């Protein structure tokens, strides 16, 4: 059981996908402009990542090494498409808000990265732990980035429609740069430096 816990916590801080492994940056940048996006993306992402880790680790002994990448990525793509279709069909409301994030997951390097680096070498239980850990790590990272970008970019913060708070002066003419992906680079760069300063991650 302890290895389950270790794998889970490892993904959150020590090998946080966005800040340490620096993978999955494309969707992170595109989506982290509001808290709702962050929560939505994380939910869809964790589901797909855990499912993918389970399947990959389940068939890891049968996958010939030569075709491992195509096989893994077909599994991931099918998973994503199935989740997308199911959502559009059975949960149209949720799909309306999460809709655009799901296709983005296919091009998320983290999932294939984890399948390639972890799932194909470990058991199903550990893979689930790793999937959850990395998923939560991704969620924490994207929530933090979205928090900053939405606050500075629009001057106010909303979560599922109700306003959290807004900065009086800023919400008239906010720093719109933060809504552009360039702003995301700045935020991630500063956060990385901050983590180094606080000793969370090692210096380079």
């Amino acid at each position, binding site marked *: 059981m302890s290895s389950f816990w270790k794998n889970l916590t490892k993904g959150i801080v020590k090998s946080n996908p966005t800040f340490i492994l620096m993978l999955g940056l494309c969707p992170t940048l595109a989506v982290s402009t509001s808290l709702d996006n962050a929560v939505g993306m994380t939910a869809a992402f964790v589901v797909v990542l855990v499912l993918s880790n389970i399947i990959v680790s389940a068939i890891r002994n049968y996958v010939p090494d*030569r*075709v491992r990448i*195509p096989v893994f990525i*077909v599994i991931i793509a099918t998973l994503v498409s199935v989740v997308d279709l199911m959502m559009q069909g059975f949960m149209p409301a949720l799909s309306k808000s999460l809709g655009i994030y799901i296709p983005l997951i296919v091009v998320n390097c983290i999932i294939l990265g984890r399948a390639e680096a972890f799932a194909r070498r470990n058991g199903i239980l550990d893979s689930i732990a790793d999937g959850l850990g990395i998923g939560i790590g991704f969620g924490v990272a994207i929530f933090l980035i979205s928090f900053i970008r939405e606050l500075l970019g629009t001057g106010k913060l909303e979560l599922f429609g109700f306003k959290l708070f807004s900065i009086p002066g800023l919400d008239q003419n906010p720093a719109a740069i933060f809504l552009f992906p360039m702003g995301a680079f700045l935020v991630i760069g500063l956060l990385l430096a901050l983590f180094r300063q606080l000793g969370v991650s090692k210096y380079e």
Partner: protein
Amino acid sequence: MSQAIAVVLLTVVGFAMGLAIFLANRLLPKEDKTLEEAARIKEFLPGADCGACGYPGCFAYAQAVAKDKQVFVKNPCPTLSQDKEGMKRLEEYLGLKAETKVGKKAVVHCTGRSEVIADYHGVTTCAAAVQVASGYKECPYACLGFGDCVAVCPTGAISIDPERRVAFVDWEKCIGCGQCVAACPQGLIELVPGDTPQYLGCNYQSLRDVPGRKRCPDGCIHCHICEKVSNGAVGWDEKKDLPVFTQTPVPTAIEKCPRKIIKKTVAYTEPEEEETAAVGS
């Protein structure tokens, strides 16, 4: 019905992709076996990629040894020869003994006491500093002490004397890989055989204008005394106008040198008596 056809056709696409990979595997040159052997040999090597063996990095050296074992015998990895028992393990693995070879050592031809004449604020590397009127010291050949050589030295054999701002080499750690020679923009570092007894602590090439004396208290003044007193044991480099020392120790020259700039190395041994008898005028 059209769904079924689509399924079949898409599976055919899948098959085609698999076939492409299969053909690629068949047509591409087979993974040459020496690569695995090289990977195993590399495990024994220190992995400093220092180039002392003359190959671009440990893996290239491992590949060469994997292809032909004699490469290891004639040209053992100098870094590894420092660590006796690591060397033994590789010799056992390869099943043959490497010839012992005297490794090369690096020396810095500068004592760094040239006076600082400018307050330099810029990119803190020798390569950058030298481009600004060839350094911030009185002597244009002086060591600038920003540690470009320290940065490339794989074994940390070079360190910088902080207040004199000059580099010096610890022969214990130096493996003679020569990375520092290339890194020094002033060309102050030279690889000499491990048993060289002495070397010149200055690289000031006489410009025929201002004598060395004014540029630096330790500057060589090209008086040729060391050459005269050691009857042939010390040559002269006309281009650089500096003495060239050989393997034979020259105590008289060291003592007679008016600037006391001929430095003894750790490999220096007092010669027998009759050597000093031939004292030139």
